[in-house]
């Protein structure tokens, strides 16, 4: 096995601002109702991802990025509950929905729609409160997910090939051997050596990096428009992480799919994404072009975050400037701007009273902070 010193010359991918959205979140709210109170994990998130875009959602643990990602496909387990907002996706073809409905024709009673009745954007359908068949037609087919822990996210008692062919056959009926061939192809595509053999392996027979490749192969099996990768490299070593990021980048360029990359590692985000959304305590506090934001962050949290990580080549003489204090307890969510108690630019009477406004500039750079109110 040889390493190939590759030069990654994807000179800043141009993003088409008018490309059709593959996912649009409006006011998404997810709560966890616990015995001691309610934790609002996602607190009114608006986000749009367009075709071909790679969006990194960054934030520290507890900022709600993972819950947000899971809320999109309604994968939040009890006691989590989506209590508001809507998830808009391009309306799946009726044949796809019928297939997802399966043999049992009976319609399940529709769940109550917590979302306010907003008019659906052109050609989109809201997933919250939708017919389960529609949700299933979107899951895996239009939007696929890759999770953090490939070991626990794969079923340990099923062969990896079977887990992939299941996903293939679910959305595109085909004979088992054809599906198997496709699974082998996919495994080859994600860089697994000897895929004819590995297709019959169980997850525990593979290394961490290979398992994550299997997860990616499974996610790609139906050519999704959007891949949601939830901390896909966090459990991996730095060299394996580089392999996986490389793979994701090449797959994205080859297939033109959009990626939502959930990560706490700003370095990982910078390596793959075009745009970034910074989350803090369930809110998106800043959103825009990644290079732009990392070069000149506007929100005090983003600035503090970028200041607090050591950069390679900086040496040991420049002192890091950490964010003050701790992330607040979930029950003790600060009023007004959730970041105000750790913020260096805190303005009493302003930041702690009302939620900060969303400021948007001409380049589409959005920030939720009173500091920029004058700019408007």
């Amino acid at each position, binding site marked *: 096995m040889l390493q190939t010193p*590759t030069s990654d010359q994807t000179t800043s991918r141009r993003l088409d601002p008018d490309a059709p959205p593959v996912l649009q979140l409006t006011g998404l709210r997810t709560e966890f109702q616990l015995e001691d109170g309610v934790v609002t994990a996602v607190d009114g998130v608006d986000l749009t991802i367009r075709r071909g875009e790679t969006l990194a959602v960054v934030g520290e643990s507890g900022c709600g990025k993972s819950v947000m990602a899971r809320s999109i496909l309604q994968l939040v387990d009890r006691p989590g509950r989506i209590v508001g907002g809507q998830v808009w996706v391009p309306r799946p073809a009726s044949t796809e929905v019928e297939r997802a409905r399966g043999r049992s024709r009976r319609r399940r009673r529709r769940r109550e729609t917590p979302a306010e009745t907003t008019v659906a954007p052109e050609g989109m359908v809201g997933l919250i409160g939708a017919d389960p068949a529609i949700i299933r037609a979107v899951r895996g087919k239009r939007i696929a997910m890759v999770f953090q822990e490939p070991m626990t996210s794969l079923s340990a008692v099923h062969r990896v090939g079977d887990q992939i062919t299941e996903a293939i056959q679910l959305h595109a009926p085909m004979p088992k051997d054809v599906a198997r061939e496709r699974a082998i192809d996919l495994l080859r595509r994600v860089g697994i050596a000897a895929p004819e053999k590995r297709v019959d392996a169980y997850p525990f027979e593979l290394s961490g990096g290979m398992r994550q490749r299997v997860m990616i192969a499974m996610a790609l099996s139906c050519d999704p428009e959007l891949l949601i990768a939830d901390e896909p490299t966090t459990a991996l070593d730095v060299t394996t*992480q580089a392999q996986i990021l490389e793979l994701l980048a090449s797959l994205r360029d080859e297939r033109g799919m959009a990626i939502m990359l959930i990560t706490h590692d700003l370095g990982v985000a910078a*390596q793959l994404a075009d745009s970034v959304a910074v989350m803090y305590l369930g809110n998106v506090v800043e959103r825009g072009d990644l290079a732009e934001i990392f070069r000149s962050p506007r929100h005090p949290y983003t600035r*503090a975050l970028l200041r607090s990580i*050591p950069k*390679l080549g900086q040496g*040991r003489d420049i002192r890091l400037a*950490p964010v003050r204090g701790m992330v607040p307890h979930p029950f003790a969510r600060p009023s007004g701007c959730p970041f105000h108690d750790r913020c260096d630019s805190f303005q009493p009477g302003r930041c702690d009273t009302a939620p900060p406004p969303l400021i948007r500039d001409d380049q589409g750079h959005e920030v939720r902070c009173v500091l920029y109110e004058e700019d408007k």
Partner: protein
Amino acid sequence: MSQDTDVVDSEVVRTDTSDVLLETRQLSKYFPITKGLWGRTVGQVKAVDHVDLQIRQGQTVGLVGESGCGKSTLGRCILRAQEPTSGEILYRRTDGEVVDLAPLTERQLKPYRQDIRMVFQDPFSSLNPRMTLADIVGEPLRVNKVVKESEVEDRVAALLARVGLRPEYLRRYPNAFSGGERQRVGLARALALDPRLVVADEAVSALDVSVRAQILNLMKDLQADEDLTYLFISHDLGMVEYMADEVVVMYVGHVVETGPTADLYRRPQHPYTEALLSAVPNPDPNAAKRRERIVLQGEVADPSDVPSGCPFRTRCAYAQELCATSVPALREVSPGRRVACHFSEELGLRGIEELGVA
């Protein structure tokens, strides 16, 4: 085991060692692989394999490598939290005398346990949830009878204040604290006995980014104030650069390269170091776009079945025939720089600047 003799034969250059606080010589830790009903030993996982390491007084040595490379095991062997299989751990006492800690019994070791302390990775499992901070931080004081029982609490309160926690937290249990605060408690416990060397095993890896910097800064301040020496074990090259004066790179139980931090990052001499540096994700968008990345193929070698010759050769782009047959010894290639590669002088490896990660 030809490779053992190879390594032993190699000439270990020792320059001025008067400021060396702790040194390991040919330190090894093998874990037996047992089989069957009565636990027969059928093989060995060579977690640490004949490692020479020097830690100078007042400095921070960064120990880096991927998971499973043996860096944590090495740290724990130095602390004698794990029994080394063979080798020496030479420790220079305050009176200048050098003792080998490896063969000492638990009783003989006790005074040295006060000098060499540890900070753990997991701030949750390293503090006994059933004890208050006063008990946790006071435990080493009580066990070693450093201060009178009546003074223990005052000492603990002072220690807590020293690491930035309120002394009133004395009566609280660890579950009232966040990861960052628990790590401060861990530091207070380590500092309780006025140690000379602190082994920090991934001490901040489990923390959130914003809190991580707080702890790193605190560790630096403590080092300056208390004349501490750190062995800073981490997989994060960015943090190691921020903390360490000297870096030791490990790969499947072997030290493959050592040197002063800045120099090693600018001019790596081992292909593995080069690859590691190139893989570091950097949040600078300019760097990310123009970088030249080396993506290593394959997986880390299995420490129970290390490849012949150079353990890294199976993943190395520059591997030649010699690499499969002969174990490269860790040799001094320039003052202060040691590397275990046959061809390091010829390769012209790229550092962080050429790789575009800085």
